[in-house]
């Protein structure tokens, strides 16, 4: 479900556009592996109070 939300958000931005994603630890594997599989790149990762903040570049994989 989490990745579906990310995918829908990516559909609304232009190629090479950036998307910020806030994730709990337990969703990291599925979301990042699915993003990589679909040709996107996670261009930065930071952490804030146990939440992972990803910057995703659409089609950047």
């Amino acid at each position: 479900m989490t990745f579906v939300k990310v995918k829908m958000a990516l559909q609304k931005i232009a190629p090479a556009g950036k998307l910020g994603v806030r994730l709990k630890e337990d969703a990291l594997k599925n979301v990042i592996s699915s993003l990589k599989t679909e040709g996107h790149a996670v261009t930065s990762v930071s952490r804030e109070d146990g939440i992972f903040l990803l910057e995703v570049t659409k089609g950047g994989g």
Partner: protein
Amino acid sequence: MNEADYKELKKGGMMRQAEAGLFSVRLHVVGGRLDTTQLRAIHDAADRFGRGEVHLTSRQGVEIPNVRQDSLSALKEFLSPSGVGVGVCGPTVRTVTACQGCRVCPSGVIDSPELADAADRAFYGKPVPHKFKIGVSGCVNNCMKAEENDAGIKGWIEPRWERGPCTLCGVCAAVCPTKAIATAEDGSLTVDLDLCIGCGDCIVSCPSGGMREARRGYRLFAGGKFGRKPFLGKRILGVLTTKEEAMAAITAVLEFFRAHGKPRERFGDTLERTGFDALERRVKEVTGL
């Protein structure tokens, strides 16, 4: 029927039922795979020689129950053209179980049916001190419960860390289910391979490519069983990278059991006597793995 005759029948997969004169006939199935011709033959055999039903066993096998003793030979003959043989029981290497492996399952790391077929050809029905079960799981999701087998295999991905592309984002350590990844004082990452369960989650989750695949292949677990006194098999050797290496390791394990096992003693109990180290030392010696 005397006990000696029954023992022979049982070895050939014919098991006496509670009801006198009836047998449940175990069939030879490898990794739970049957083609439709074989399924039709089993269906017809169950109608003709049994009571129109089959039993699916806990280890992916098929049995035809309610077969009269005087029909056992005819049943064997009837099934033969379809390539369905009768199974085994008693102190032999039993049905080799397997998942569908990497050719079918997206999680699969190894070709489980291929290894199961090779193990079946090499070991099935061969005599051992006590029943010996082999199971092949294509990945660490472990659908075939490798640790419940006397010799269990799991598909395995061993990671390695490369400093170059790594951004030290911490994702690999966060996703690792056994917390095998740690950051050292010099900022490098370490993977504790004793804790690593070979799932590859760190690799598929790594955004930068810093966590990579060192090798993939087969991991061997020895001495597991369920039954009255369950015991989980233990991991021996490192990652075996080819089917041939996996087969050589299983062969050496079986030889060790034949050399050290006692009649009616499961392999796990043998290993409690000899120690797992003795098995691992011997297998390494024999195979060079």
